[in-house]
């Protein structure tokens, strides 16, 4: 596994393990994050874990101390990221809970189902079966509070994003490229929406606001429109517009 370290400005830096969606790379990402958390340094403010990269936000003023050996604060942070890469060990069975998530693919829930079926020349039933056929890894939480990037989907379902995002309701399940994901809150979204879950995935008041975490696994199961309406936790009237 190779890496590249580069600055994201003068107060953040990134260790990048390659522009690729890969389970073992994503496990290394978690290992680096865990190592940085355990062996933190003064001025480290936040760690952003993504598919194949770990970025750190830091306060250069707190990092810089008299006697700092490196020429710049970035050089010091780079050495910390290098250490974390070399010293971290992948935990094979880290945080690998499987979440079973109900999804309604019918009616108004699958906004873009008809479009997808037409473009991909696959029946709606087959799209659902393909989407249900896999256990997905949570590769990262990002973009929005609690938005989960899950992968990888069956190649037959791969489709481009919409040219312009549209407003989607909370719980919408979308696909884009090799990924599927759940919109935790009502917001503009560019993924093709094939279904919707009635469960709440982000609750600012909870001790753990995001239901899913990087490294978890997700398996979807189908529910009817009736079942969906019965257990809708986030009522449409409560969501923001």
């Amino acid at each position, binding site marked *: 596994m190779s890496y*590249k370290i*580069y*600055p*994201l*400005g*003068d*107060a*953040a830096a*990134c260790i*990048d393990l390659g*522009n*690729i*969606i890969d389970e073992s790379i994503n496990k290394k990402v978690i290992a680096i*994050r865990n190592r940085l958390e355990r062996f933190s340094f003064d001025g480290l*403010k*936040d*760690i*952003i*874990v*993504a*598919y*194949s*990269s*770990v*970025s750190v*936000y830091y306060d*250069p*003023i707190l990092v*810089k101390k008299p006697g700092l050996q490196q*020429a*710049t*604060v*970035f050089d010091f942070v780079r050495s910390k990221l290098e250490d974390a890469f070399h010293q971290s060990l992948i935990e094979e069975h880290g945080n690998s809970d499987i979440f079973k998530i109900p999804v309604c693919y019918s009616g108004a829930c699958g906004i873009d189902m008809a479009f997808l079926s037409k473009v991909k020349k696959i029946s709606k039933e087959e799209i659902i079966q393909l989407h249900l056929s896999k256990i997905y890894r949570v590769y*990262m*939480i*990002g*973009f*929005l*509070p*609690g*938005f989960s*990037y899950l992968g990888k989907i069956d190649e037959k379902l791969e489709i481009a994003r919409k040219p312009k995002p549209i407003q989607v309701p909370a719980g919408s399940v979308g696909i884009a490229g090799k990924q599927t994901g759940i919109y935790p*809150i009502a*917001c503009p979204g560019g993924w093709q929406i094939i279904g919707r879950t009635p469960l709440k995935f*982000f609750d*600012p*008041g909870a001790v*753990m*606001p*995001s239901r899913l*975490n*990087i490294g978890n696994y997700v398996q979807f199961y189908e529910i009817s429109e009736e079942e969906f309406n019965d257990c809708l936790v986030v009522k449409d009237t409560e969501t*923001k517009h």
Partner: protein
Amino acid sequence: MSLSIIKPGLLDTIQDMGRFGFSHWGINPGGAMDRYAAQVANMLVCNDAHEAVIEMHFPGAQILFNQNALIAITGADFSPTINDEKVPLWQPVVVRKNTVLQFPKLISGSVCYLSIHGGICANEWLKSYATNLKVSAGGLSGRPFKKNDEIFFKENSIYYAGLLKEDNNLHVLPWRADVQKTYKFPHEISVIKGNEWDQMTGNSQFDFIENNYIIHPSSDRMGYQLRGSTLQLSSQLEMISSGVNFGTIQLLPDGQLVVLMADHQTTGGYPRVGHVISAHLPKLAQLRPSDCMKFRLADIGHAENLLMEQQRDLQVLARACYDRLKATVC
């Protein structure tokens, strides 16, 4: 101890230095757009630099003080008045209860800060008072101010009411923060090359530095949309999402640039061609839609030195403000 909102402004929110440590849940830092002006506002009234402040965009709110208060207004100049009497920016001011603060006219800048001695009582969410509008958390119930909102402030540690002369509605304390260094050459913004800088064509790299960019009206707290010459990559680049920061400049598929601002997402999938240096984020935050700007390249050592210098000046300022106020009220 409170103030009331007679009439809300365009977007008045409670902000602080941001919410850090929760990116793994996709929770972005948010916080004040102009963190320098917000810190100076706090320092002028002898608050901790991280205390919550009120951030306003033009038009600003109409605010009724229900009690005497020691305040400071910093950042953009919206020609503030107390009962129609002008209030200077960047100075501590004692205001009498039942007076009204207004912002009748836009003179310059984009975001204005109001600090109150003692600090504001706000909802703390994940170790920060910053308002997160997306999930309605932090600040004042996670939303902008509305008519008749009452915002409480914390207890005083300094007795300043005695400074108000008999009939005066306000008393301006005779010292001012010198912020010239931070805001000089307001349209020149230094950037560090981003990881995808080299993926731009030579002509586009040249255009990036040589041409002017205009801030589009669709810009907001999330990002500034820029309009200028169309930039190109030397080859098609499919990127998977990765970390971004306040000041990250992304090249969009249509060849235009967006600079991520305080409410930026934690991750993004567009090429990062540059990053605005921290010391110049306050200048950028004060640029308005239709304003023109120009990028200059800087190296990271220089950027770090500028930031250290800015921070040293802030520490000197904090000390001076504290000493003067203590000497005045005792």
